């Protein structure tokens, strides 16, 4: 099984950078195989599965295009539900997404990820059967900063551990 882990967000927009931090930490925990996949990612291939890690600031069609060819995707992002404490970690399948607002999974400048996935499927693209979202409740995503707020920073290693469990 091939799996793509995508850290989403903006690394210089405060808590919005949490997706990248988590994905980068996941990449560091993977045994290094030859070559990097993208700017912040790397891949490895144990006997029965391969894992690639990417850090992106895209959504919609672009995100869909990055997932082509993978069996499974784990999307890591921040989320603003306002219902739970900052730093709360969520893990849910993509089809549960419409109830929640995120900044990147449904980039509105092209189309929503759900629409983009349908477009890809219509075109015959091979897309993941299983898309899981790991999201951290954020607080500060409107100020430029390369630092996370303390509750979000605390959540990063916990989310990393959660993703490593998913990858087992």
């Amino acid at each position: 099984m091939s799996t793509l882990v995508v850290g989403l967000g903006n690394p210089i927009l405060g808590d919005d950078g949490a997706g990248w931090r988590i994905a980068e930490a996941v990449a560091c925990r993977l045994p290094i195989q030859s070559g990097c996949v993208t700017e912040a990612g790397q891949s490895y291939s144990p006997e029965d599965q391969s894992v690639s890690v990417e850090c992106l600031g895209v959504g919609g069609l672009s995100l869909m295009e990055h997932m082509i060819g993978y069996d499974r995707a784990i999307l890591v992002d921040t989320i603003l539900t306002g219902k739970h404490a900052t730093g709360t970690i969520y893990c849910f399948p993509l089809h549960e997404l419409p109830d929640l607002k995120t900044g990147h999974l449904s980039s509105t400048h092209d189309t929503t990820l759900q629409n983009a996935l349908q477009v890809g499927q219509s075109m015959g693209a091979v897309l993941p059967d299983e898309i899981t979202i790991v999201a951290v409740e954020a607080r500060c995503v409107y100020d430029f900063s390369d630092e996370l707020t303390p509750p979000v920073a605390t959540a990063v290693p916990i989310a990393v551990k959660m993703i490593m469990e998913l990858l087992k």
Partner: protein
Amino acid sequence: MSTRITIDPITRLEGHGRIEIFLNEEGNVANTYFQIPELRGFERFCVGRPVEEMPLLTNRICGVCPEAHHMAAAKAADAVYHVEPPRTGKLLRELLYSGFYFTDHTTHFYALAGPDFVMGPTAPVAERNILGVIHKVGLEIGGKVIQARKYGHHIVEIIGGRKVHPCTSIPGGLTKGITEEQRVEIEQMGHWAIEFAQFSLQLFSDIVLGNKEYLDLILGDIYTHQTYSIGLVDENNKVNFYDGKVSVVAPDGERIGKYAPNEYTDWIAERVEPWTYLKFPYLKKVGWKGFVDGKDSGVYFATPLSRLNASDGMTTPIAQEQYEKFYATLGGKPVHQRLAIHWARLIELLYAAERIVELATDPEITSPNFHTVPTATPTEGVGIVEAPRGTLTHHYKTDERGILTEVNLIVGTTNNYAPISMSINKAARSLIHNGSVVTEGMLNMVEMAFRAYDPCFGCATHSLPGQMPLEVTIRDANGETVEVLRQHC
């Protein structure tokens, strides 16, 4: 008692824009406000960093047009170091940029604008998206859109080192060139791109221009504003996305001047309004007269349409033919019907595609002379490119070590804040009368007023001194505050 209608969040718009429409007791539009919680403090974030980091940092401002920020930052950094990239360096940057334009304009037409015209502005929202377009016009077109995006991204990757966030432009040029094999590959993609752009123009002609209802909508008064047009032009006043001077053309078509990047502060000033933190740029030489049309009002717009209005034509042959057809069809220059921005965008798509082939077949494009080593002491510089959604200006000041001391950005969409606000207001007044039932389709037609500008407020940031909580004040028809929104940050 006034009634408030809120469109929030704005469908298919990056960022978190909000439109407020206030109705008076008679049920007519009393006023409209278009408000954007802006991102804050980018300039402050940059101060203290080396200027050569800016092409990498600024393309992180927003995920929609990182290539535009990369280029404007690189040009500003060239100016700071008083260094001119060699010809091959400029050609390569423009080639990368043409690939980016090809992707961006394709996406806008098929994913954002297309649904309004192909499905119709009053179609159910569930159908009014790219999926609806594909189902209506055929899977083949969907495949072409995906292919177009793939090629555009690939050109960016070959020259820029990465697919989305390029990293090769530095003060004085680029860190790498391209091989003959890569040149051939880009040229082949360029030929495909020209065919695709022509196909897209034909599609627009068949579906939009061939439909009287849509044509009436485009040519009607609802979406028309008489404002100044600006756009980057070369030495022959032809459209150029990467280099040149900014041409300024009056509503009657008279060119009142052109300004070089380092002269922008002589031409552009910014208006502050009490109801939003985002500023409204206007032409300093004309002056701010409010949100009004006309030659005496300094309001200008910066879009594909304004670029055509501000120029004397295109440098590539097929795009020039389309340029002439455009003005012949719409009654001569300048064109003020804002929905014609969609058509102008497709002409630019064709120009970008033709430019890819022109640049990829230039004898010097594979030369290893793509960088000039800066030797002068860095001081201050301005870089301007045309972002797909408007003129993009980066202005940096540094100390003698090249460490940033001041940064100012005027991003593409910010230029259009005043005309977008005016377009929303006019569309709302034209469509909502005497308490008529406000339908989803009607609200979408109000949204269409600003969607033509392809706005993206994700990067519409500006320097804010000290700590300033973001709050948006909503007023009723009498100017009384009825609600205050705050970002919890």
